[in-house]
């Protein structure tokens, strides 16, 4: 089993990382939707956006550091990670009162990024 683990295709962990990124986009979108209906506290939304950004940095590094991935998939994935980090950090900008405001997140852009991550994962699964 251990030797089998060494032979595991690099696309398997890649697909998992991309799925993980899509899952974070979906979770943040859902949290945003719930927060707009006051079903979760604002502090929770801020926290999940912050955690999502941190996790996306990790996912990006994992993909960027992988040496045995097809270049096209790798470039597309890291670009999408950058886009998502951008959406999350720009959404969490400081408002006029000096506190972070996660309500500014562009949920449409986030949903689009999630869709592209899913598409990328299915293409990686097909190779």
């Amino acid at each position, binding site marked *: 089993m251990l030797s089998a*683990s060494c032979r595991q295709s690099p696309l*398997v962990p890649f697909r998992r990382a991309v799925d993980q990124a*899509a*899952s974070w986009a979906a979770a943040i979108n859902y949290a945003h939707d719930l927060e707009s209906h006051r*079903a979760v506290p604002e502090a*929770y939304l*801020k926290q*999940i956006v912050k955690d999502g950004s941190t996790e996306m940095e990790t996912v990006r590094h994992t993909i960027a550091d992988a040496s045995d991935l097809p270049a096209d998939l790798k470039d597309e994935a890291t670009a999408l990670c950058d886009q998502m980090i951008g959406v999350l950090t720009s959404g969490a900008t400081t408002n006029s009162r000096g506190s972070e405001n996660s309500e500014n997140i562009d949920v449409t852009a986030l949903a689009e990024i999630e869709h592209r991550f899913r598409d990328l994962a299915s293409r990686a699964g097909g190779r």
Partner: protein
Amino acid sequence: MKNLLKVALGIVASIGGYLEVGSLGTALQAGSSYRYELLWPIALGTICIICLTEMSGRLAAVDKETTFSASREHFGITYHFWPLAAQVLVDLFVLAAEIGGASLALELMTGISMQVWAVPVTFLIWVLLWRGTFGAIEHSVALLGLVTLSFVVAAKWLHPDWTEVARGLIPHRSSDDPPKYAYLAVSILGATISPYMVSFYSSGAIEEQWKTTDLGANRLTASIGMSFGAVVGMAVVVVAALTLAPRGIAVDTYQQAAVALSQPLGRWGFWLFCASLLVGCVGAALELSLDLAYIVSQSFGWRWGEDQTPDVEARFAMVYTGALVLAPLPTLAGIDPLKFTMFSMSLTVVALPLIVAPLLVLMNDRRRLKTHVNGWFSNTAVIIVILIAITLAVLAIPLQVLGG
């Protein structure tokens, strides 16, 4: 009437105490990633834990010995050291995961970092152990733990397809990322067949002074209680399958899972999720701290029992105090509680055969159990549990590499 009350309390304790960081975390991941496909490890694990707890309760009621003190006496310290060391390590890791889970629940509720909560949570657990009695701890944990029934209410509200749910109870392979599926199955089994439940159950039976007349109550408590507990665990899978999976949320952290109850229970959902995580983790942390003190004291022949004051049993109190000094360290270091939980569950599985195997010998010792030794059915069951434990132990590490 007294026995009926004992059974009722035992069942409530099992329901309230079933859901903790391991079972909650693994069930959320299973439901959100594989919908109902991983219900069968909960069912299989529950059958195993019913057999093990029934036996440990029977040993305590008839022989007036816990599994650890009987093992120490029967096998000698040279052999007994290994199961003791394995369970101390596993209990410490799981205790650390529970403190992480409780601290995270408070972070979700308040927005204040879990690292800030780690020490107050640990201190609260220590004070409850220092001041409380066994009965008070057991019953308060059980009653507060009933908040986890909100998952059952939510699952019913979501109207799952019961035929599909029933299909999930039959073991099968998944075509979607098989290594991850197998890793989750092993983790669920590790969370369900918790060795600490067995030693804690037998120590509790001694604390409550069970006698041979309590054997019927023991059987009912172990079987009905654990089965109801498993229903709560399965409800978590169903809720995650119906609220998180359709939205494409595959749980990777508790933060992502905190909205699992929001669709069925509205504004209450978020708070009930946090309360379930908090109560479940604090309850399990109390039991794990006590279990550490029980198994170490029983192995070295020290005086033990939660109903005595700490000045009477200084070494017993020192063990749980020492454990509680170490347990918050991973949370203070900022390690994610769910990732730490999954690692702890794999460690549990690796240690399981070492902890379970002595039971087969002890439960067939006529000097101890007289006419209450295992019959063919119980022996077959415990052999199957040991074989499952060995298989899981062999698979746990490679699966952690492949699927974790």
